[in-house]
């Protein structure tokens, strides 16, 4: 082994040597090396002296009396405030915090259950109640915003009336896409609606719905019935119907539909595609002009290559024209016919059978079952309330953290004083 290698190994093992962690033979070889290498001997000497200095640094150090007195005073003051740790004062703090949180949650849940306006404002949400057939109680949703009945969705721009739909019908009837001035100010609005109804006379409701669609010149796009009736021992039937109703008579149709059962949910949306419609029309017009010019150019083509290039371009433009026409046709179809999704649910006939005489066991069972049911509903509502609070926590939590840090800092400074 060369001297360089020995020195490197010496340096690597130096700490273990000083800490007394080396095997006897390694220790002896290091001592041997130190005797023959002045550099390593100096390193060993300096490091040994340094460690001796360190070890002696605090040999006679005594804790100053003011330091002893200061911590004792601080601990006694802490003890005087109350028992330390989770067995003492902090335990009450924890219990208090949990109790306060529970009371808060209980209060918020009860407020939610009673559907107080204050709770709704606090949670920043609106209640979608199971609407009855009374029109004034209905709630509509349009483009994500909820309105009371008197603020029914605005389907047309100011000044426009149902005559506009007359224009729509005219356009839908034709298969051309004129961009004349008559269409410039027209709005193209696609309407959709959905209703959920329930009734204990499911068959009658189904029949009436089908009849209603037919009466309004609509058509059923899709219809699915699931489940078994209560009479057959099932848990009731449900039906999902998708219908197309002429937009001109959509409102009238919906009013008639609402009378067929109890409405549990209603929703109406309208999408304004006027801008896209006009853009597509303009593009279509430009494409047609381009197609006419290309067709004219083919008549004067100088070579076969030129002719082939022109034909390729014509095919490309024609394809774009087809695609744009298809889009316009779709919008016109959707504009003239609104989509209505109807969910029908069969509910059991309301019957109340009162036992002639209940014994104590039955009464206990009934009371327990009732309490359990209440608890289940309460917990579900609590979850809803917590979920409603979640967005507010984004602001509340940092605010609480800052407050806590400030209080902690002030207390700490007071303690030091």
């Amino acid at each position, binding site marked *: 082994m060369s001297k360089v290698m020995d020195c490197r190994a010496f340096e690597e093992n130096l*700490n273990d040597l000083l800490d007394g962690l080396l095997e006897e033979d390694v220790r002896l070889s290091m001592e041997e090396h130190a005797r023959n290498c002045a550099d390593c001997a100096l390193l060993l000497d300096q490091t040994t002296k340094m460690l001796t200095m360190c070890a002696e640094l605090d040999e006679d150090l005594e804790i100053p009396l003011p330091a002893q007195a200061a911590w004792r005073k601080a601990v006694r003051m802490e003890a005087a405030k109350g028992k330390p740790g989770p067995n003492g004062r902090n335990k009450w703090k924890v219990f208090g915090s949990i109790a306060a949180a529970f009371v808060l949650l209980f209060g918020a849940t009860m407020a939610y259950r009673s559907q107080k306006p204050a709770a709704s404002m606090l949670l920043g949400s609106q209640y979608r109640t199971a609407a009855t057939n009374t029109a004034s109680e209905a709630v509509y949703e349009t483009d994500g915003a909820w309105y009371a009945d008197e603020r029914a969705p605005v389907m047309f721009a100011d000044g426009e009336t149902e005559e506009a739909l007359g224009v729509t019908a005219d356009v839908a009837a034709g298969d051309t896409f004129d961009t004349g001035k008559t269409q410039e100010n027209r709005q193209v609005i696609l309407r959709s609606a959905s209703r959920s109804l329930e009734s204990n006379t499911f068959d009658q409701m189904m029949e009436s719905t089908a009849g209603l669609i037919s009466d309004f010149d609509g058509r059923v796009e899709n219809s699915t019935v699931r489940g078994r009736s209560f009479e057959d021992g099932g848990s009731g039937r449900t039906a999902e119907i998708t219908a197309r109703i002429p937009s001109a008579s959509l409102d009238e149709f919906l009013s008639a539909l609402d009378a067929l059962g109890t409405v549990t949910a209603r929703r109406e949306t309208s999408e304004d595609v006027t801008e896209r419609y006009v853009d597509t029309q303009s593009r279509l017009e430009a494409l047609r002009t381009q197609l006419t010019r290309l067709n004219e150019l083919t008549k004067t083509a100088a070579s076969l290559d030129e002719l082939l290039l022109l034909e390729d371009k014509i095919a490309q433009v024609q394809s774009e024209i087809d695609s744009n026409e298809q889009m316009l046709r779709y919008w016109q179809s959707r504009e003239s016919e609104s989509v209505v999704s109807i969910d029908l649910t069969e509910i059991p006939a309301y019957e109340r059978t009162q036992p002639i005489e209940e014994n104590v066991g039955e009464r206990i069972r009934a009371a327990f079952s009732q309490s359990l049911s209440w608890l289940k509903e309460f917990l579900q509502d609590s979850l809803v309330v917590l979920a409603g609070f979640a967005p507010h926590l984004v602001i509340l939590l940092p605010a609480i953290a800052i407050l806590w840090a400030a209080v902690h800092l002030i207390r700490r400074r007071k303690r030091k004083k």
Partner: protein
Amino acid sequence: MKDVPERDEMTLIRDAAKGDASAFERLMREHEGRMYAVALRMCGNREDAQDCLQEAMLRIFRALGSFKGQSTFSTWVYRVTMNACLDELRRRKVRTASSLDVLLDNGWAPTSEDDTPEKYSIAADQRRYLQKAIASLPEDMRAAIVLRDVQGFSYDEIARVLDANVGTIKSRISRGREKLREILLKQPELFDRYPA
């Protein structure tokens, strides 16, 4: 090295956990000197050391109820002390002891003036210079060097106190000693004046 027998220690811990300040003072009597020494070497001055000692004592007093004996009491005590020192150093970053290199560059030199109440077995300037050199080490190396070379803790104990594995501690100590020697060599007469 225990002044308080283990059974008594557990009794004192239980009493102190219930809020008995006297029991706590008895319990901590054997640790306070070493805790102060660790704090002094970590912070580099007596005022901050006193603050850290007080903070560590309060933390221990408040947390005694949750001490379940996962580690020995003394290991836990020095861990809390070291954490209090590191927290203090981080909080007072701008106030931490100036780097020795900067002091030397500015013309600082050890003096023979003995202005501390501690008794010295080595020269006061040598002691002061060594203290400054230790205080100028990075925090992780300083903690390991103070516990190992100044306080004489074993590698295993240091690993438990600093919550790191033994390999990491060995590496910190090795690098710390190298750095400390480099700093001390800027005043080579310190070694000459020290007996061989």
